[in-house]
């Protein structure tokens, strides 16, 4: 007896099993990470021919590389000989890739270049066979420098997949006076012992900070308002205090917008005036002047009025334009997830802006963060709690009866406390997992009861 996977998601609730069942996790890797557009990296990480960045699509190791012609490729990080991982360092520059096992060598675009002892192979062995290569991921496309790849040879275009979320990616780039951004400032890597879906499900959760982050909120509230030392501590303290905003704030001033394919963003949250004392600040005034010199007053006003907090592109990307943060979710096992976080430099902006980005990253995405550590604890506790097999269905119904339709095929909450973004991701989950044919598609997985 098999069960239709769409049965795991019901209006306003989800079955606990999709967070704990290893068989469902394997299906997710195939049907979601093996089909959707997955964020791989940014073009600034591979500026020159030979530059590479080793990462993963789902659990599959791949290499983002700029080949000899300047084309950005994503190739499988697997030697065609005995299957060894070829590129073991995270980033660098190489004229070619050589496997450390028997020396098979590959062009930057993944084609086989040289095979030691080639005369020993059968006569029909063809080193030009496209399947004897570090094989290319079939579809690779950039949107304004953000590189996505899809393992599905056919499917919707990247722009169609992103839909209205292109405007969030635009916001990352439009804030740079020179119109370009680049990855800089190192990487934070953190891990937790729970399901990958929980990460994006938390990033637009406006109802948790006042509770989960209470220890850092109360500690930060004891600090005075004035600028101290070089100001980096202020950015952290402001952020921690902001987490303590009362429910009335989240219900009146902040919104949550969701779009097809599981994407969403939290908006109208931190305007620059709240976080960096923007208009009084000489660095920010200098920044605005530089922006206006390049883009004109009207365009700058438009850019700065885009007030988005976290934007989530399902299933593996979350970013935040006001402090140029980007996080990539790597599923490792049903109960193990790794997240890498990156910073972007706004080209042409005052140097202090990037220092603020670094300070914000330390406070919010850092391994020693006073904030993130409590989020990671929540994920771990969810995994442990679900293991008790108490309540079978998990509630994700807050705001269900007051959500409204939105332009661009979207749906938004009455206010930011709606869990509409979780329901929206679960709708996408059902669509991917059933290939849009929920009624016909059955699997060996069934609801336990």
């Amino acid at each position, binding site marked *: 007896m098999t069960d239709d996977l769409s049965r795991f998601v019901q209006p306003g609730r989800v079955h606990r099993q999709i967070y704990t069942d290893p068989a469902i996790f394997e299906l997710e890797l195939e049907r979601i990470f093996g089909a959707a557009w997955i964020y791989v990296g940014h073009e600034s990480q591979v500026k020159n021919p030979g530059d590479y960045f080793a990462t993963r699509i789902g659990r599959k190791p791949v290499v983002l590389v700029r080949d000899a012609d300047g084309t950005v490729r994503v190739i499988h990080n697997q030697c065609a000989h005995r299957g060894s991982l070829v590129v073991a360092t995270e980033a660098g520059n190489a004229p070619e890739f050589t496997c450390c096992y028997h020396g098979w060598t590959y062009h930057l675009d993944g084609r086989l270049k040289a095979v030691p002892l080639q005369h020993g192979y059968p006569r029909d062995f063809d080193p030009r066979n496209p399947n004897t290569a570090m094989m290319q991921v079939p579809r690779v496309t950039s949107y304004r420098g953000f590189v996505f790849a899809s393992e599905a040879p056919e499917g919707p275009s990247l722009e169609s997949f992103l839909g209205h979320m292109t405007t969030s990616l635009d916001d990352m780039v439009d804030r740079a006076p020179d119109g370009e951004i680049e990855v800089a400032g190192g990487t934070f890597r953190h891990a937790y012992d729970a399901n990958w879906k929980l990460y994006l499900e938390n990033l637009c959760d406006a109802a948790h900070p006042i509770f989960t982050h209470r220890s850092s909120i109360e500690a930060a509230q004891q600090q005075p308002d004035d600028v101290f030392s070089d100001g*980096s501590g202020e950015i952290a303290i402001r952020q921690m205090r902001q987490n303590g905003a009362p429910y009335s704030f989240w219900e009146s001033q902040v919104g949550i917008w969701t779009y097809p394919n599981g994407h969403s963003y939290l908006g109208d949250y931190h305007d620059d005036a709240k976080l960096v004392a923007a208009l009084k600040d000489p660095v920010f005034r200098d920044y605005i002047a530089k922006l206006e010199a390049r883009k004109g007053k009207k365009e700058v006003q438009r850019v700065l009025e885009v007030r988005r907090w976290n934007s989530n592109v399902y299933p593996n990307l979350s970013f935040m334009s006001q402090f140029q943060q980007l996080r990539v979710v790597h599923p490792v096992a049903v109960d193990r997830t790794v997240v890498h976080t990156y910073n972007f430099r706004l080209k042409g902006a005052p140097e202090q802006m990037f220092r603020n980005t670094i300070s914000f990253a330390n406070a919010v995405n850092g391994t020693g963060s006073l904030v993130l550590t409590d989020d990671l604890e929540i994920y771990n506790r969810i995994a442990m709690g679900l293991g008790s097999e108490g309540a079978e269905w998990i509630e994700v119904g807050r705001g269900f009866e007051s959500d409204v339709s939105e332009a661009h095929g979207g749906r938004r909450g009455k206010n930011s406390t709606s869990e509409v973004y979780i329901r929206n991701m679960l709708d996408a989950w059902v669509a991917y997992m059933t290939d849009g044919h929920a009624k016909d598609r059955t699997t060996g997985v069934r609801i336990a009861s």
Partner: protein
Amino acid sequence: MAKTSKTKSKAARPARQRTPATAGRAARRVQRKPLDVATCETFLLHEARLLDDARFDDWLALFQPDAWYWVPSEPGQADPFETVSLIYDDRRLMETRVRRLASPRMYSQEPRSRTSPWRQSTR
């Protein structure tokens, strides 16, 4: 956000910013006299004992108001401005970190981390 004047003065004195957190009275003594290994040892043992005993307010009192506590994220990291750090706390963030440790709602520290297997947290 730093005021411009602050930023400039920092840029002019990067070496000072890079100095890891140093202790109050001990640091002042060090400036006057040549480095004395025994004094340093005594101080470090004292600091370690305060941490082992979870006497974090007393530990905090070892630091001057302009102290920084810096844990770089990369080996050989040149500075805390261009690259993220595991910890880059000015004195107020150090205070905030210590005050958070006193909170009964610090969920990621249940049970509390210890720096010594022998000594019990006093909190």
